[in-house]
């Protein structure tokens, strides 16, 4: 298996895979994550664009599987043409909330969504448009601030990975679970344009709660800057 992504969620997934006795052929991500690779004892390939190293990924992969976890790089034709099966752990219910999870969650809370979700889906040419394999919804408390909900969502993402890993390992062509994706009131694609529009909602009654980054402010600099 190959892992593409960055940060604590990625490395928790890598460690869990190793602890499960499953192979980690390669981890690909920003150079800053190289130190974590040393600690985990896995081969690391630094890349700013995963598509630029498609050949290396294909050559290293022993089972045809690529996990995308907390990954901001977009898979395109070079990787998607290699025959590798790329699975993405997306923080958000699909197909409703696509794009940057930290932005999508703000809009979900502004819209009064009672729940959000982690979703495992197969990666295709679009952004978060591939077929859904599994999802795990979680509640958004009526009075909870953003940082509490986001922290819960990150934990649910890892839990979803832990649950699906053995299923995918046992059957690389695992078709997924029959359970439907959780419904949502709103949704759409939430990228940098949506990030830039957030300031328009300052008078929204839920704005303070939906943008209370708390301790997350240091980890979400783009969002913090957009809200400043």
């Amino acid at each position, binding site marked *: 298996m190959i892992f593409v992504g960055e*940060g*604590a*969620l990625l*490395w*928790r997934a890598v460690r869990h895979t190793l602890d499960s006795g499953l192979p980690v052929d390669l981890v690909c991500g920003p150079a800053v994550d190289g130190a974590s690779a040393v600690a985990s004892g896995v081969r690391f390939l630094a890349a700013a664009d995963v598509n630029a190293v498609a050949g290396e990924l294909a050559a290293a992969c022993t089972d045809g599987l690529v996990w995308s976890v907390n990954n901001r790089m977009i898979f395109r034709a070079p990787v998607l043409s290699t025959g590798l099966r790329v699975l993405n752990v997306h923080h958000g219910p699909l197909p409703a909330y696509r794009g940057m999870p930290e932005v999508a969650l703000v809009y979900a809370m502004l819209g009064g969504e*009672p729940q959000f979700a982690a979703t495992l889906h197969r990666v295709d040419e679009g952004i978060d448009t591939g077929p859904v394999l599994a999802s795990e919804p*979680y*509640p*958004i*408390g*009526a009075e*909870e601030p953003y*940082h*509490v909900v986001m*922290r*819960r969502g*990150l*934990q649910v993402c890892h*839990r979803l990975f832990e649950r699906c890993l053995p299923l995918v390992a046992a059957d690389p062509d695992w078709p997924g679970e029959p359970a439907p994706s959780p419904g949502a009131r709103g949704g759409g694609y939430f990228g940098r344009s949506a990030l830039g529009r957030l300031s328009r909602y300052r008078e929204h009654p839920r704005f303070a709660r939906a943008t209370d980054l*708390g*301790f*997350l*402010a*240091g*980890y979400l600099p783009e969002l913090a800057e957009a809200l400043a």
Partner: protein
Amino acid sequence: MPDIAQAAVVARGRTEEVRALCAFVVLAQGVTAFDEAAVRAELARSLPPHLVPTVVRVLPALPETASGKTDRKALPDPFDAATVGAVDSPVDSPGGSPGGAERRRAGSDAGADRAVAAVTAEIWSRVLRCEAAGLDASSDFHALGGDSLAVLEMLSALGEELLGGSAERRLLDRLGPLSGELTLGRVVAAVNVVRSEA
């Protein structure tokens, strides 16, 4: 809730006048992570607000009477300050607190600082899954295996259990960079300063 194998709810005195519902749960086999706020949020979807427990605490097992029923009187009191104060602090007096906190505080303030150190160490042990007794002021969060998500969990628990709302920014400012050395003594000192400024 599939993560919870057993649960019991009792009322405990939050203050002399106010009683609050306290839930005690035993996690299902194999479950290691517990999100107290998520449980409360889930309950809030089906219960009126006054029936949602104020606190939810994990126990290894529910105490039982001789006849095998849950012994509700033997369940702990989460609001019992004496219990917290009685916990031996594994953290030496942090000292060296900058600003106004450098002033020596005696009597009850020193006792409160020890309680803060004990609660902080307990939070670390919970997040890092290590023994609180093995921690001291020089213990480093990252060296003990804590990643950025664990830092968030730890800070959030500090905010909920020791600081209250709106203190996050002041604690972050006081702590400085979170990716560098993050010792227990440094965190306890920062918490004490923020509390003294409140």
